[in-house]
């Protein structure tokens, strides 16, 4: 049945026809001898050929980024500048990644190729040429660590899986287990342990204000309050203050990611590997864009992170650098060409233990799970479409004239968001920057003020002009400028983080606890204080000062400058004089 306004003749043609699940024969397309066991995007593979297929895809995605000079000749072998940190969530992708990394780079036993424990399988790796002690066959990374961030403190009723994950990692005897907890993001002790410097200020923020006014975090009034002011309680206050259901898993994801990054830097890791499969990459790309993270969409696939503040020196977890300039950590997702189905088949055929991970129970209708449902359904019905999502996103680039391109031209690519520490992707070759920290997205607040529908009274100090339609008689409700500019976090955040903290749901799905039941500001992760302390005083967002304010029409280094100026009625009359009708 056609829709009332559609073209009934054309509509049938526009439907995407479902292809058969596999092309031509049921035999393996590779060896062309054995019967197929699995269909991967319409191609049929037998179990024997499937194992090297995955191993080759994995190495093809990772090997070019191992040597300090990426994409350079690898004839003399692979040798990373520092150690390796693998982020293990307990999920399917990271469990498969852990197994692949161990088999490929750490386990030198002859049966480590992946095939021997697969019935009738053939290993992808034989005894190395020249023997295992030959210098050529030295370990690619001098050390490997597996970091698990336990998130149960963020979700009431969630189970602590640390010990289960520890047992899983213990099976890989060359890899060291590094357990973390998500509440470490609010722990001064952890910050000191990773050598975070300068020492973090205890900062809090008023999350009900679009300006995100900063203040000193509340100090406990009495002993009982002091005892209850733990990293976990700070995390819970932070979570409770978030305005939407979508913001909660998004914030936990950000905290986990930055914890991993600082742990990598503190342990001298040159590479941080994440188990994002092609399917989950497509989910995170679309969900990220939907939450305002389009600016860093390419970085979602892979990137380089340079610590915004000095880490690793003086802390107990310190290391003497990772061999990369400025301690840059390469964040690589080696499973980005391998779908969830292939991961599941690998895990099943190699009998991997997948611990699973906690999901936020209240987020069923939030952007992340809804996107996942859509992509997983798409992968079943149209398997090739999912890789198109990732390939298309890989081609995206920030608009010309935005902060990334401007600063790349100035050889300054160290713009970061103080909360998520995302940096514009500047290519794996570029890891150096000695220039000061600057905010991730210049002009984002101006842009947000132009495109979003919100109450003018909530617009905060960035609404420094009155819109023309705003009636004169309502002047009294115009936000009056503060007598002295209060320090604001807003100019130091990317659009996505600012939206996560401030965008309210029209459904009012969470109870806003901010600024806290007793009027206390919402605590911030420890690195925010460190980043702000390291930030030069003139590095305010939108090209302004530390208070984040910018003179209207000020010429900055942004490629696009909007000038807003209120006209008086006489000037307006002059502009439209030619179009006025006579009385």
């Amino acid at each position, binding site marked *: 049945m056609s829709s009332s306004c559609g073209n009934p003749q054309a509509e049938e043609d526009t439907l995407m026809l479902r292809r058969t699940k596999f092309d031509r024969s049921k035999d393996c397309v590779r060896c062309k001898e054995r019967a197929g066991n699995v269909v991967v995007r319409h191609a049929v593979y037998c179990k024997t050929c499937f194992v090297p297929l995955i191993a080759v895809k994995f190495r093809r995605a990772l090997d070019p980024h191992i040597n300090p000079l990426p994409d350079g000749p690898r004839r003399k072998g692979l040798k990373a500048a520092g150690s390796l940190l693998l982020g293990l969530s307990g999920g399917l992708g990271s469990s498969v990644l852990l197994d692949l990394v161990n088999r490929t780079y750490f386990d030198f036993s002859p049966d480590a190729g992946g095939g021997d424990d697969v019935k009738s399988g053939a290993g992808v790796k034989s005894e190395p040429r020249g023997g295992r002690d030959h210098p050529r066959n030295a370990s690619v990374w001098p050390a490997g660590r597996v970091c698990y961030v336990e998130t149960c403190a963020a979700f009431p009723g969630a189970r602590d899986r640390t010990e289960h994950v520890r047992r899983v990692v213990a099976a890989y005897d060359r890899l060291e287990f590094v357990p973390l907890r998500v509440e470490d993001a609010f722990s001064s002790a952890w910050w000191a342990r990773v050598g975070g410097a300068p020492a973090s200020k205890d900062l809090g923020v008023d999350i009900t204000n679009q300006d995100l006014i900063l203040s000193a975090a509340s100090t406990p009034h009495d002993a009982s309050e002091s005892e209850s002011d733990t990293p976990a309680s700070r995390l819970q206050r932070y979570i409770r203050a978030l305005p939407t259901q979508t913001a909660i898993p998004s914030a936990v994801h950000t905290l986990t990611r930055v914890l991993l990054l600082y742990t990598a830097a503190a342990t001298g890791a040159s590479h941080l590997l994440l188990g*994002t499969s092609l399917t989950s990459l497509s989910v995170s790309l679309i969900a990220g864009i939907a939450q305002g993270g389009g600016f860093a969409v390419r970085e979602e696939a892979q990137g380089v992170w340079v610590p915004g503040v000095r880490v690793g020196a003086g802390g107990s977890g310190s290391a003497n650098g990772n061999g990369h300039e400025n301690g840059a950590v390469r964040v690589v997702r080696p499973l980005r060409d391998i779908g969830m189905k292939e991961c599941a*088949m690998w895990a099943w055929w190699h009998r991997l233990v997948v611990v*699973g991970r906690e999901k936020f129970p209240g987020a069923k209708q939030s952007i992340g799970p809804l996107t996942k449902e859509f992509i*997983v359904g798409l992968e079943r019905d149209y398997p090739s479409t999912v890789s198109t999502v990732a390939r298309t996103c890989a081609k995206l680039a920030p608009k010309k004239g935005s902060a990334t391109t401007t600063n790349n031209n100035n050889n300054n690519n160290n713009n970061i968001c103080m909360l998520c520490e995302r940096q514009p992707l500047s290519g794996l070759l570029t890891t150096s920057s000695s220039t000061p920290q600057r905010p991730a997205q210049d002009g984002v607040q101006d842009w947000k003020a132009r495109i979003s529908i919100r109450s003018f009274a909530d617009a905060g100090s960035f609404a420094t002009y009155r819109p023309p339609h705003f009636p004169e008689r309502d002047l009294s409700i115009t936000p009056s400028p503060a007598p002295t500019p209060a320090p604001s976090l807003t100019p130091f955040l990317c659009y996505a983080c600012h939206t996560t903290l401030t965008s309210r749901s029209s459904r009012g799905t969470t109870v806003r606890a901010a600024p806290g039941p007793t009027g206390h500001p919402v605590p911030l992760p420890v690195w925010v204080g460190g980043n702000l302390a390291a930030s030069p005083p003139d590095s305010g967002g939108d090209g302004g000062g530390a208070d984040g304010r910018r003179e209207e029409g000020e010429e900055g280094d942004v490629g696009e400058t909007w000038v807003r100026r209120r006209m008086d009625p006489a000037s307006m009359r002059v502009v439209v004089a030619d179009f006025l009708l006579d009385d």
Partner: protein
Amino acid sequence: MTTISVKVEFSGGLELLFSNQRSHAVTIPSTDPTDSAPTNLQYLITYLRDNLLKERVELFVENETVRPGILVLVNDTDWELEGEGDYVLKDGDEIVFISTLHGG
């Protein structure tokens, strides 16, 4: 009524929906009682939903088949190569259901 026995295995967290038991021996009629056709995988999925599933049906079944994100193996082979729900079950078959929705 003749019956067939199949081994059913759950993985990737699906076992939590089935009494936290990974492996089940299931005996089912060799023909579908509703239309007397030979019992196929579709029938098995319905049977599992009605007889073994303990909680949260929506995590296993959607539109009368397994929900997207669940892989099915028939004797260690992707069910897409075997005709999916139309595969006619044989005595001694091993059917594996793997959830891929554990995250990454």
